[in-house]
């Protein structure tokens, strides 16, 4: 699969352009998440307290319940993965719930033009990274999923390269 991808990128100019666009999204998004994750723990900039009374309350509840630390931890780890260009498909999936929450908070709870833009950009970037690795997710799109098995575990731990 990886060699097919490489062939596609080498042979087709539009494939190369797409690759560059996805890489740009990945590194920007990675830097954004890493910086915001680190900022929670080290406070380089004042931590945003919400841009509307509703989001202010929501962020306060997240902080008080310590769920915010979990969110920021996910941002930190996935941001590192995007920047290191390692485990990117996994990071795109793990980061997606956080991206959706950020979009929801910005678009619905804040609602001003700047926040709405931020909401769509964060989901757009995360979605673009995922689409850039769509070939990794295609097996998940199977309608007829078949029976559960230990094939995945055997492949993961190297016992059976075929997985069956």
């Amino acid at each position: 699969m990886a060699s097919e991808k490489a062939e596609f990128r080498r042979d087709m100019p539009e494939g190369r352009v797409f690759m560059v666009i996805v890489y740009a999204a990945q590194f920007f998004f990675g830097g954004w998440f890493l910086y915001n994750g680190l900022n929670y723990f080290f406070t380089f900039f004042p931590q945003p307290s919400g841009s509307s009374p509703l989001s202010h309350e929501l962020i306060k509840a997240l902080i008080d319940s310590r769920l915010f630390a979990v969110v920021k931890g996910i941002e930190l780890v996935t941001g590192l993965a995007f920047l290191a260009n390692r485990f990117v498909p996994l990071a795109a999936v793990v980061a997606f719930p956080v991206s959706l929450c950020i979009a929801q908070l910005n678009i619905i709870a804040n609602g001003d033009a700047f926040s709405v833009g931020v909401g769509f950009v964060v989901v757009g970037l995360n979605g673009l990274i995922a689409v850039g690795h769509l070939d990794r997710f295609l097996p998940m799109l199977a309608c007829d999923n078949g029976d559960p098995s230990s094939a995945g575990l055997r492949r993961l731990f190297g016992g059976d390269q075929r997985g069956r």
Partner: protein
Amino acid sequence: MRGWVHALCVIAGIAAPISLEAWTTSAHGPRNKAHYAAVEAESMTPKEVVLAFDRLAFDDHKPVEAIMKYVAPDYVDHDPTVKGDRQSAIDYLEKHDWSKGGPQRTIKHVIAEGDLVVLHHHLVRQPGTKGLVAVDIFRVKDGKLAEHWDALQPIPDTSINTHGPF
């Protein structure tokens, strides 16, 4: 991806969002200090607004600043000694001599219900006097004091009440 290209991408990936953050939180950005201060004010509960007003006006001796910050432009005051708008409240408070600390106000009880906040306090306008038992009622709207009622009772020199006014 070659190593040096990857390194450049990492640097750019970190620098770009930090630069954006620096711009958005700068004085000209959409997330400047004034923006967050306004949200903070809007997010305060009615009780927090009243106590913040009280601290700035009476503890920090900045009554005009407190009124401009926490009192709505269309403020209504039912105190019979003032005309009843925001400017009349400023004029009234400015009459006091704040250089000597201004009126002394000791809050005894704070009761908040919906958009109403009731302060029960001991007010001493002239040092050395017993002062007044005061009840102020504020209605708060959008993080600002919108309406005010008060009831004042002078503390007598002698009283048959053995519990005192507070």
